[in-house]
């Protein structure tokens, strides 16, 4: 029962520790005086008596400390004392502290920011129950190299009927609606889905209900599900909306439900309606070659993806045999949701960025370790004195570690701030189509990651110097005066090693950045096949209700385009179903006249529908024949093909007048013109064979209008809106942007990758340069004496210069060697991100190597110059 009292006394001691020290000192002093008195009485003279008494006491300071120790707060006190001392020395060496803090804050902050993004996009599980059971189904045609094609409605139907490995399959078709509400027309990104869609994902509406299978039929399908955002924005979160009607494309739809606020499926769909797959209502659905459905499914419990793939392969083969004309060569490809939503190239890009940032942090740590090492050397004297006063090695190490830990913690806090803002900045700069990017926020994992990083950093940075500095053996030389360590000491060797590593890592990063930059430049220079300058684009969607037949649709567009062309500042105008380099694709199989049954392999091509003057507006050359005209209508049979298609289908003949059968059925169209190839899919992929229908022929209501202007295209948007509004007040135009903007968006990802990696590699270069500078200056300072002797013995300035530079040159060459070896191993990770440049591109390798060597030599020039200017007299005199 003694210990509570014990503790109480100890705690009291804590508050009165200063008084305690004073009192104990006084007590000891008194003791010594009395002892000295006694000595004097015994015959010693005053001074000898005093010293004798002191000797008997031994080490008074140690005594004091041991007395304090018994009170038991020694650990806490030591830490506090170390911390206060550390803070004081931080304030004294402001430059050092500032450098360390900034380096740490940037390194830790950047790492955490990138990790947050990597976490949000890749590491977090998808927001559906059991997401690893969800699968995306694609139609694929490996012979043509097409692995991810949408499915056609008849194929989807057959899959549903014949499969047994999924609990259910669902289809989704992207569409848009014009939502008219309170005299306001707004365009809404929507999707038509089967009633099985949401149950497969495992989500249900927050309000109301899901679709029922009956609503997938014509006449019953005018129901809609809203997204939470749309419900809030356009309808003020009115609960009474459920059951009421809204106007979509000027038709009434009943709202049956609202989705939960956090529901997201790949894109920002705001409205869902039931999809009608019945071919009687939508004739094009009967075409097995018309691929426009996205299909998802949930695996039955216990079924693996491989098993499911095997069964779907079998089904695909059956369909191939049943419908050879359309399905020949077409198979099914399954892809897990995580593979699909986060594609391989995005994954790789993010990991590469993560690795790059990690490398930068590594270099920063190396620099810091070097700095700490140098500083510890300078404090050698202090360490020796403390050691003589009785500090154990543990004490010294602890002191240095505390300083280090304190600095790193401050750096960590600053780093977190940078991470927070950095994440926001990165999210704003990154290409917007990266999934789940908007949800990137600092969370537990990121926080834990940062703390771990800080811990590892402080260990990496502080440990080696701490142990090195407390080495008491080398200290004796220091006490005698002089700068101590010979230049070839193990400490400076460690620093040189660190710098070597820094240069090698910087080299690797620079190579990566250089390769990406060259790829990006190549990408920008590809031949597009059209002229994107000064072209404005926007979309219109004519609602079925008021523009039910194709004549009316064609008439609308013809008139609209005519009026647009009449505007001042407009050179040309046309429209098409889809523009190059935009998302989504319409592909179909075609048959050629004169193919025998054995030759009848359906050629799969991209399909577009265009109005007259579209090619002229876009700058796509008309190579042969003629464009569509306004006289084309639903009965026309003309079709235009791309040059590539013409050369493939009719290699040595004139393509004009040849007949093509598009899709199933027996309707043959005649080729009336040939246009130049266009890069439709992406900048990196070559152009594909394309056929162009006349929009009037097919009766398409939703087209993208392109307008070539004399000046800045975006200044004409208001005029366009006016023209369309004057023709139909409830018709909005949407997605207005210039073609150059579309182009920029298409190259957004490579641009971002190149820019970010370049930024990191430049930072790495800067850090490595700083490292070299520091090490060289230090080496020169250490060898002042030696250099003085050399110069006194007759060495010229230039030979001293050469001596210093030669040392560094060896260093650089070794580092480059290591760097090249590392590069050859690591660039396979980047090779997927490159375009038109090989990972071992000699131009890049050579250029970067030269750059690095030049920078390093430049950095070592300044200290070398300083070395050459050493006055030998001064050098030999001062020690």
């Amino acid at each position, binding site marked *: 029962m003694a210990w509570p009292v014990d503790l109480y006394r100890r705690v009291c001691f804590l508050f009165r520790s200063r008084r305690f020290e004073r009192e104990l000192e006084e*007590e000891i002093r008194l003791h010594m005086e009395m002892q000295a008195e006694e000595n004097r009485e015994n015959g010693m003279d005053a001074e000898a008596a005093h010293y004798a008494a002191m000797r*008997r006491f*031994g080490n008074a300071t140690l005594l004091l400390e*041991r007395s304090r120790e018994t009170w038991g707060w020694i650990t806490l006190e030591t830490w506090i004392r170390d911390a206060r001392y550390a803070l004081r020395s931080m304030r004294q060496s402001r430059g050092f502290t500032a450098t360390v803090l900034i380096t740490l804050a940037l390194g830790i902050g950047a790492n955490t920011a990138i990790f947050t993004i990597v976490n949000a996009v890749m590491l977090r599980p998808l927001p559906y129950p059991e997401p690893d059971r969800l699968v995306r189904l694609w139609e694929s045609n490996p012979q043509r190299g097409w692995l991810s094609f949408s499915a056609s409605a008849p194929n989807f139907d057959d899959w549903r009927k014949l499969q047994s490995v999924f609990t259910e399959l669902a289809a989704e078709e992207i569409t848009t609606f014009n939502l008219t509400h309170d005299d306001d027309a707004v365009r809404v990104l929507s999707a038509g889905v089967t009633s099985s869609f949401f149950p497969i994902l495992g989500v249900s509406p927050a309000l109301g209900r899901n679709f029922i299978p009956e609503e997938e039929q014509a006449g019953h399908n005018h129901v809609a599900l809203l997204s939470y955002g749309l419900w809030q924005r356009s309808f003020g979160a009115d609960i009474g909306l459920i059951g009421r009607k809204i106007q979509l494309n000027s038709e009434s739809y009943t709202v049956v439900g609202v989705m939960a606020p956090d529901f997201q499926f790949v894109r920002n769909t705001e409205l869902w309606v039931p999809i009608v797959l019945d071919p009687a209502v939508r004739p094009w659905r009967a075409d097995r070659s018309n691929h426009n459905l996205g299909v998802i499914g949930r695996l039955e419990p216990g079924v693996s993806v491989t098993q499911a793939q095997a069964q779907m392969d079998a089904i695909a083969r059956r369909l191939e045999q049943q419908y050879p004309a359309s399905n020949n060569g077409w198979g099914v490809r399954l892809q897990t949701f995580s593979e699909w939503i986060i594609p391989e190239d995005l994954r790789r890009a993010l990991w590469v960025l993560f690795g790059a940032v990690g490398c930068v942090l590594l270099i920063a740590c190396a620099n810091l370790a070097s700095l700490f090492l140098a500083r510890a050397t300078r404090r050698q004297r202090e360490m020796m004195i403390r050691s003589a006063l009785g500090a154990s090695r543990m004490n010294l190490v602890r002191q240095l570690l505390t300083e280090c830990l304190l600095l790193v913690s401050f750096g960590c806090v600053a780093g977190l701030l940078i991470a927070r803002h950095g994440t926001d900045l990165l999210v704003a700069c990154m290409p917007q189509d990266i999934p789940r990017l908007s949800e990137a926020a600092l969370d537990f994992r990121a926080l834990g990651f940062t703390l771990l990083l800080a811990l590892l950093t402080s260990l990496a940075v502080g440990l080696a110097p701490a142990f090195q500095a407390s080495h008491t053996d080398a200290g004796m030389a220091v006490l005698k005066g002089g700068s101590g360590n010979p230049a070839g000491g193990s400490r400076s060797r460690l620093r040189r090693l660190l710098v070597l590593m820094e240069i090698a890592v910087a080299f690797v990063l620079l190579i990566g950045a250089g390769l990406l930059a060259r790829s990006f430049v190549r990408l920008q220079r590809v031949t597009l096949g059209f002229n994107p300058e000064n072209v404005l684009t926007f979309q219109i969607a004519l609602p079925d209700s008021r523009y039910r037949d194709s004549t009316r649709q064609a008439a609308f567009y013809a008139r609209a385009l005519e009026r647009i062309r009449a505007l001042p500042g407009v050179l040309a105008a046309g429209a098409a179903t889809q523009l190059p380099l935009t998302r989504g694709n319409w592909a179909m199989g075609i048959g050629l006249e004169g193919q025998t049954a054995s030759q009848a392999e359906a050629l799969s091509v991209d399909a577009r529908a265009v109005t007259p003057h579209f090619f002229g507006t876009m700058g796509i050359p008309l190579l042969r024949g003629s464009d569509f005209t306004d006289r084309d209508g639903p009965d026309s049979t003309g079709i235009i093909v791309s040059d590539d298609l013409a050369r493939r289908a009719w290699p040595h003949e004139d393509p004009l007048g040849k007949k093509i059968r598009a899709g199933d059925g027996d309707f043959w169209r005649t080729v009336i013109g040939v246009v130049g190839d266009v890069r439709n899919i992406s900048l990196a992929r070559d152009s594909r064979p394309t056929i162009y229908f006349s929009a009037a022929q097919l009766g398409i209501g939703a087209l993208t209008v392109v307008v070539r202007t004399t000046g800045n295209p975006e200044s004409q948007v208001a005029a366009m809106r006016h023209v369309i509004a004057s023709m139909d007040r409830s018709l909005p135009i949407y997605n207005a942007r210039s073609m150059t903007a579309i182009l920029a968006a298409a190259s957004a990802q490579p641009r971002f990758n190149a820019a970010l990696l370049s930024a990191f590699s430049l930072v790495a270069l800067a850090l490595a340069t700083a490292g070299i500078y520091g090490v060289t200056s230090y080496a020169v300072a250490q060898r002042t004496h030696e250099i003085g002797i050399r110069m006194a013995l007759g060495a010229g300035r230039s030979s001293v210069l050469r001596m210093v530079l030669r040392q560094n040159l060896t260093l650089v060459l070794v580092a480059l060697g290591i760097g090249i070896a590392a590069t050859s191993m690591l660039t396979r990770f980047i090779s997927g991100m490159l375009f038109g440049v090989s990972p071992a591109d000699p131009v890049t390798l050579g250029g970067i190597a030269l750059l690095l060597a030049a920078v390093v030599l430049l950095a070592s020039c300044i200290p070398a110059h300083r070395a050459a200017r050493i006055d030998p007299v001064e050098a030999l005199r001062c020690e």
Partner: protein
Amino acid sequence: MLILKTLARCGALHGYGIAKYIQQVTEEVLRVEEGSLYPALQRMLIKGWVTAEWVQSHPKRRARVYRLTPAGRRQLASEVSEFTRVMGAIARVIQPA
């Protein structure tokens, strides 16, 4: 133990006094090292076996004087009995058969 006994015998004593006393009484055989005296005194202060106070021993100096507490007396008694027990055991071993 020796410190406690010294204080028991002499009442109130300062550090120097304790050391001197032990030295004298044991006729220089045992000497308390100053380096261990003060830490020992601190330990006893914590445990509550002694109390300390400052007295003006001289017009110009003051000394810190230690006094035994009842708890200290009890501790002394138990230490002494323990010591005696151990002594007895050793004596039995050493004694000529």
